[in-house]
């Protein structure tokens, strides 16, 4: 099953890319509303609005029809992620729907030099912003100039940080130069942050820029902002949708902005959108989107059950809600589609091996201790209780569908064996116990540590933590589980004050190369060894700590991988990193998450099944949401 799945996905992508390349000018069709506007002379004809060489999007199922609104919901004022996933996934180069290739998108073509330091993107001739003005290389350069300047309001996204310079070779060609080779640059450009350089229309956004408008600072301060930079950021940045006037390249443009106040955020069709279907119909099919802003998840659940949500999985598609939606399908006129989980684990138990507590630090750094605790967990029972038996015991290793699947890493030490665990613990000298049966450390104190857990990411986390604590208490280890509010947990881990951290397992599918945080300590989220990770991503930091040999080797290998442009070489390097990860066994996993799901109304066409679910790959964005349509 899993093998087939992977093959079909690859095939689908190959076809899509092929068709995209073979686009040809033809008689284009457009939405009736736009046609009327053309007839009234309010819009130029469709052929003039499209680029000379539009992207031809091969539909997942069939050619759609025009009209309709896609209804979904936003949770609170900070849910810009859903807009990014639905409206705003149109980077220069994009992930294929199967997440195994990077294909041209806004860029007609791209090329890299051999070292992987200079990347040249060719834009589409005649590509226009939603206000009808031409989209050119200068817009991208404007964005880079602002983002790499010291004035940029937020901090610089990682993929931009690495760009030394951006230049417009001509109106349609932009060249990005990197300070050092980066083998993952195209993937980063295809990721969820890839639209960052494409949202700053120079003409519109320069009015907020001090270089172009001397009054910009005063105007910003008059509006209560800290300065022109914030004003520019607020108006134009990818995360901000308050400004309905900003021209976009996306399939829809906002009409009621997302400012945290409008009860409903709406979008309408961008008449200049650059994609067509194989029959030459300009996309998108849907007239628009409407997203109800709500503070309550239950409100969204109810709307979904009542058939008021057309296509969505965010917030509501939890494991515990599945029976509810399953039963509600008929009444609500929707069905459940499946998504491929990109997470490789339901829970990664990260013993802090850079702990400030010397006793714990010493214990956690002993592999036998970690192995013993792993054997002490009854994973099958956990799966039965928490996931209704779905999934299998799994360590922190890539998913079986992944190109980098590593069997030993994934499956070692997963069997439930209390005897073995006790033997291992005895073996490292933890033989003394106190009156309650808990083991004592070398100073004669009970081995006890805290696990602060938040239920905000996964509602089952507190339960999972409790159960793990129960199992560990049976081998004489005392864990004090606390359910806490997320900002507290976040503060603790940032300050490296945690004993243990529980999170999910990122890096299960295509994001393994970009975010292998659980395979080697390499970023701020590698919370089992934050100081070692710092020695990799921020060596100058005071907190950075020299890692042991194995981790050091992993760091070397990952550095090579990052600067390699050759996928085969990358795979080989990755395999070696994972080998070491399996030897070192630093993160304890629980189980492989079952596939996720989402709900789609029966009359929504071209809904993808088995699409990967991730953030870097902002599901469902890479499917090309412009092809969704409402059936009769």
């Amino acid at each position, binding site marked *: 099953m899993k093998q087939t799945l992977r093959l079909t996905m690859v095939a689908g992508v190959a076809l899509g890319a092929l068709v995209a390349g073979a686009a040809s000018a033809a008689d284009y069709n457009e939405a009736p509303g736009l046609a009327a506007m053309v007839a009234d002379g309010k819009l130029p004809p469709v052929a003039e609005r499209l680029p000379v060489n539009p992207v031809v999007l091969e539909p997942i199922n069939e050619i759609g029809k025009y009209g309709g609104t896609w209804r979904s919901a936003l949770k609170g004022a900070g849910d810009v992620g859903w807009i990014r996933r639905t409206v705003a996934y149109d980077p220069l180069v994009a992930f294929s729907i199967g997440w195994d290739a990077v294909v041209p998108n806004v860029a007609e073509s791209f090329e890299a030099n051999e070292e992987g330091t200079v990347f040249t993107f060719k834009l589409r001739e005649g590509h226009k912003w939603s206000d009808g003005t031409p989209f050119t290389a200068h817009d991208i350069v404007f964005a880079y100039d602002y983002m790499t300047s010291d004035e940029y309001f937020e901090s610089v996204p990682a993929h931009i940080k690495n760009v030394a310079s951006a230049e417009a070779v001509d109106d349609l060609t932009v060249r990005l130069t990197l300070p050092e080779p980066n083998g993952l640059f195209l993937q980063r450009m295809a990721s969820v942050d890839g639209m960052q350089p494409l949202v700053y229309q120079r003409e519109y956004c320069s009015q907020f820029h001090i270089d172009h408008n001397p009054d910009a600072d005063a105007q910003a301060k008059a509006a209560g902002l800290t300065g022109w930079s914030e004003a520019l950021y607020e108006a134009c940045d990818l995360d901000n949708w308050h400004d309905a006037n900003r021209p976009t390249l996306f399939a829809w443009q906002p009409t009621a902005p997302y400012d945290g106040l409008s009860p409903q955020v709406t979008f309408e069709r961008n008449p200049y959108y650059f994609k067509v279907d194989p029959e030459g119909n300009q996309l998108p099919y849907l007239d628009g989107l409407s997203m109800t802003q709500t503070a309550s998840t239950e409100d969204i659940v109810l709307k979904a059950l009542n058939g008021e949500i057309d296509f969505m999985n965010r917030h509501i598609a939890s494991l*515990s809600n599945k029976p509810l939606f399953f039963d509600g399908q008929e009444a609500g006129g929707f069905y459940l589609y499946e998504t491929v989980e990109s997470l490789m684990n339901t829970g990664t138990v990260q013993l802090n091996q850079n702990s400030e507590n010397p006793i714990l630090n010493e214990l956690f750094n002993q592999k036998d201790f970690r192995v013993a605790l792993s054997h002490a967990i009854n994973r099958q029972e956990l799966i039965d*209780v928490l996931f209704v038996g779905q999934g299998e015991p799994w360590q922190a290793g890539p998913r079986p569908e992944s190109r980098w699947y590593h069997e030993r890493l994934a499956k070692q030490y997963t069997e439930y064996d209390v005897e073995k665990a006790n033997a291992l613990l005895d073996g490292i000298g933890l033989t003394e116990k106190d009156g309650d049966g808990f083991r004592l450390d070398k100073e004669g104190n009970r081995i006890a540590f805290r696990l*602060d857990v938040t239920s905000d990411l996964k509602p089952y986390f507190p*339960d999972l933590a409790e159960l793990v604590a129960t199992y560990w208490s049976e081998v004489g280890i005392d864990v004090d589980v606390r359910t806490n509010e997320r900002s507290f947990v976040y503060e603790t881990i940032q300050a490296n004050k945690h004993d243990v951290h529980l999170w999910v397992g990122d890096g299960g599918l295509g994001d393994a190369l970009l975010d292998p945080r659980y395979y080697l300590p390499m970023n701020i989220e590698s919370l089992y060894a934050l100081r070692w990770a710092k020695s990799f991503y921020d060596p100058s930091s005071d907190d950075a700590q020299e890692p042991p040999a194995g981790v050091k080797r992993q760091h070397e290998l990952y550095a090579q991988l990052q600067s390699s442009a050759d996928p085969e070489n990358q795979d080989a390097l990755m395999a070696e990193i994972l080998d070491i990860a399996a030897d070192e066994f630093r993160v304890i996993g629980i189980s492989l998450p079952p596939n996720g799901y989402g709900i789609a109304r029966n009359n929504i066409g071209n809904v993808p099944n088995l699409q990967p679910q991730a953030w870097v790959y902002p599901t469902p964005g890479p499917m090309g949401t412009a092809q969704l349509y409402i059936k009769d």
Partner: protein
Amino acid sequence: MTATTVDDRIVAAGTETQWQLIWGRFRRHRLAVFSGIVLILLYLSAALAEFIAPQDPHAFNARFTFAPPQSINLLDRNDEGRLIFRPHVNGYAVEVDPVALRRTFVTDPEEKIPLRLFGKSEPYRLMGFIPMQHKLITVEDSRTPLFLLGADRLGRDVLSRLIHGTRISLSVGLIGVIMSLVIGLVVGGLSGYYGGLFDLIVQRVIEFLRSLPTIPLWMGLAAALPRDWDALAIYFAVTIILSLIGWTELARVVRGRFLALKTEDYVTAARIDGASDLRIVMRHMVPAFTSHIIAAASLAVPGMILAETALSFLGLGLQAPIISWGVLLQEAQNIRAVATAPWLLWPGAAVIVAVLTMNFLGDGMRDAADPYAQ
């Protein structure tokens, strides 16, 4: 004229104490009496939670997640087919539905699990110190399911959790009110007895505190609790937070009573007897408003119970693994629970019953608080 004239009929035996008189009045308020009985039962079950709860409230069971409630059948047919008294519940046939991601439970009429009163159980300590080996209701084989109010998402017994939650929830209210009472008595008493500038300041402070919107205040305070406190400390801190506002109402009542009593003739009489301030307060005033204070306090308890659930709703306050009604309701505050496992709402019913009965009891006590009023 002699001492025994027309007037000198003694209308009653006249030896009833104020509490006997209060009880006599209180009994007329039938709703309050009924509420009192319900509350006594509630507090009893809180005290005897370990004995009454059929199961360990923390024990999970992978096979019975979201198992629906079993009903108790009192009668059974014996081997000869005659109906006999043999209380039992039926077992379940459990199926896992991997698509819908749930277990489906069908009552199995063949599997009969007999119930026993005061049967043997695992040894435990009642109220933490009395060693016991019997429980109110047991099943013969401890592995067979007994979920009289159903099971939660981890297959834990809702009834047992509810009973154990009673302990925390009812005591949060009680301890909170006691704390409010101490503050309220001292502040209200001083302010009412001495009056003047102190009274003025206290009145303004109370007015100020009452103008604060409670939920944000609780939220801020609850979020500020040090995280490395253990569960018990958090529990006490939460009650303190709740009583932070609660005392104002009690202080108001105490002050009011003081002001009213100060002008009573018998208090003046005590002053003319030469009694000291302390004696006047303790001997003459305090007994006169004890009943009012108890009534006011009993009316403050339900507010605390509700506040505890509200804090839990907002994700602040008490957290698992502590079991309180608020914590239990937190698990029920989603459509999934309402739609597919409505038995998780039983703690809500418990809250309603407790709050209603406490209100009625308080009303009854207040009506009876002054048995000498005509």
